[in-house]
């Protein structure tokens, strides 16, 4: 397999770390080399957060750079726009169509850009936008947004679905498995 570079971007507190854990586990099951780079500490407090997942035969730098991502999963629209130039021209953007205003917008110092998805679609062909919050609610837990997005991601890779399901089961707490499997399937069907 060629190296697969996946970025997970969002707002601190949105639960992006589960997605990276599952991804890392998937890579291990496929016997790939893998590096997962996370953000901890101050940036987590409601700031813009990014996780890099790189897998393949041999991974050196844990960082994905501009134009190198095969897939970006954005938990929020503005974050999709912020990181979009990290996507390869033929890469796929999976975006949760949710809006969280950053502080400069809240205080009126800046404007939240309009029509973000349309603008991205002008430059990138493969954009999957979805209201994962709504789907997560329908599955029974608003917190399952990340698993819905993982379902969509799984569909857009060539990796066997069973491997995803195994990794998911190994990384969510026992009592939350049913909701998460439901959310994953819902995403996978999108």
């Amino acid at each position, binding site marked *: 397999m060629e190296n697969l570079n996946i970025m997970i971007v969002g*707002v*601190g*507190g949105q639960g992006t770390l589960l997605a990276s854990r599952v991804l*890392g*586990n998937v*890579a*291990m099951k496929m016997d790939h*080399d*893998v*590096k*997962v*780079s*996370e*953000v*901890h*500490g*101050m*940036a*987590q*407090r*409601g*700031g*813009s957060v990014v996780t890099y997942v790189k897998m393949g035969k041999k*991974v*050196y*730098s*844990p*960082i994905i*750079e*501009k*134009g190198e991502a095969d897939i970006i999963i954005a938990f929020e629209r*503005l*974050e999709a*726009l*912020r990181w*979009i*130039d990290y996507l390869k021209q033929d890469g796929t953007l999976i975006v949760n169509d*949710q809006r*969280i*205003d*950053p*502080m*400069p*917008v*809240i*205080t*009126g*110092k*800046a*404007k*939240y*850009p309009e029509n973000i998805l349309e*603008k*991205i679609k*002008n*430059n*990138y062909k493969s954009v999957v936008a979805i209201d994962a*919050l709504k789907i997560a609610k329908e599955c029974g837990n*608003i917190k399952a947004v990340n698993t819905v997005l993982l379902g969509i991601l799984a569909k857009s890779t060539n990796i066997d679905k069973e491997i995803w399901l195994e990794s998911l089961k190994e990384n969510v707490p026992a009592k939350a498995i049913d909701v998460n499997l439901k959310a994953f399937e819902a995403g996978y069907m999108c």
Partner: protein
Amino acid sequence: MKKLMLGNEAVARGAYEAGVTVAAAYPGTPSTEITENIAKYDEIYSEWSPNEKVALEVAVGASIAGARAICSMKHVGLNVAADPLFTASYTGVNGGLVIMVADDPGMHSSQNEQDSRCYAKGAKVPMLEPSDSQECKDFVKKAFEISEKYDTPVIVRLSTRISHSQSIVEISDRCDYKLKDYVKDPAKYVMMPAMARKRHVEVEKRMAGLRELSNTDEFNKIEWGNKEIGVITSGIAYQYAREAFGDVSYLKLGMVHPLPDKLIKEFASQVKTLYIIEELEPYIEDFVKTLGIKAIGKEKLPVIGEYSANLIREKIFDKKIESKPVTDEEIPIRPPVMCPGCPHRGMYYVLRKLKLTVSGDIGCYTLGALPPTQSMDTCVCMGASIGAALGMEKARGAEFGKKTVAVIGDSTFIHSGITGLIDVVYNKGNSTVIILDNSITGMTGHQHNPTTGFTIKGEPTKQVDLEKLCNAVGINRVRIADPFNIKEFEKVVKEEIEADEPSVIISQRPCALLKTVKFEGPLKISIEKCKKCKMCLSVGCPAIVDKGDHIEVNEALCVGCMLCTKVCNFNAFEKAGE
């Protein structure tokens, strides 16, 4: 067995496998998870110490007593622990002693980007630098062997991208390390002039031996490729260099102090152009140049900010990565903010209203310097708020002092704020100090500290009584106030800054992220009742949004802390979903 591990987690595993029985640390991003993971091993006594100096002293004592001991901190923590470090270098060790230090190039979560390698050189102790999680584990184990063989503490340097990247690690069993005998040996362990003079001689002998090790050990290895270009590099910079340069020759340094002079000469003599890639100071470069070798380093590469493969491509090969922008409008930044429900928000609302000068400190509450609160005036280092407030008062007089408060977290106060408070009392200051008691160490992700009543392993222990502690050092006026009771809090602050003696206000309310903290659930704004006076925006909550024609609560963010309801004069907030 193979496992995907954070660098920090791999360090913990390395300590476990090396037979460590004592671990001490003060939390600090990006080093915190080392000791959190060590604490999961029942075989290892682990502690959060009050600060890094105490942590290192505990580890030094454990080592002298015959155990293998590890002590972990972030880069600025090593400043605090520098005092024991420089002399532990002279005493040497009995059981192995390893100091983990995590640098933060790019300052993801720090107040400066100092390069810890300078400490290894200054303190004359060896330093290793791993470049992925497997090396984190291997190097820690090797560090203990070196420590005992050469009778020296060993520093292992990490950086944010090593500490917080997961990569694959092969797990082994714990070695059977036997506690060494404790033998009283004042000539080695009592560092007064007569003994220290002799020990310094030993230090220099040991460093000569270590230089030989650096030249011959497999830590420092040459990976031959195309010899047109040679790259000397270490740590995470090695990974970036690998991607940027591809198939050239590398001298990868695992031991960065002392540096291998012979190996460097040999490598340099066989390559046409030599580059030095290192984060961040020209530490290797300066050494290489003193050997009379020509090399390209900081003349092309920065000493500021984090490196990446693209940065190297751009600076060395002039290859700029262009991308077609999706939009030419400005993308609003998303700086970190205090969480919805954060107790600090109520306090800053009051301080801003009273237009006070705020001498600040290090923790989540440092975010109070940013919009919308913008209340903090200074922040230098752990514990600095109190001494700095006193200095301001001494410089500008009592009236200025009465318009000044120091703001410091509970854990930071114990770390090094208490000494500042003693100074205020002793030297007749008049400062008002607000201690933010949120029942936990917040910013680094919820660690216990001496004020929480629990140890790192979650066992109940004695709890520092902040009120009594402040009384005992001579503060007569100690007030406890709830920062979410805004009116009362404002009254207390006004009274204390007016008082003609120093005072402490303990701002007491637990961190909103603690599992034990329960809120009412999201609110919404009644469009009929809201007069758009925007008073609620002044609390600076990320969940309250000005939509232009109306104010709205983002229900996905709102926890229902009710702070906004206390500044709304029209009862416009109501429970969402009702």
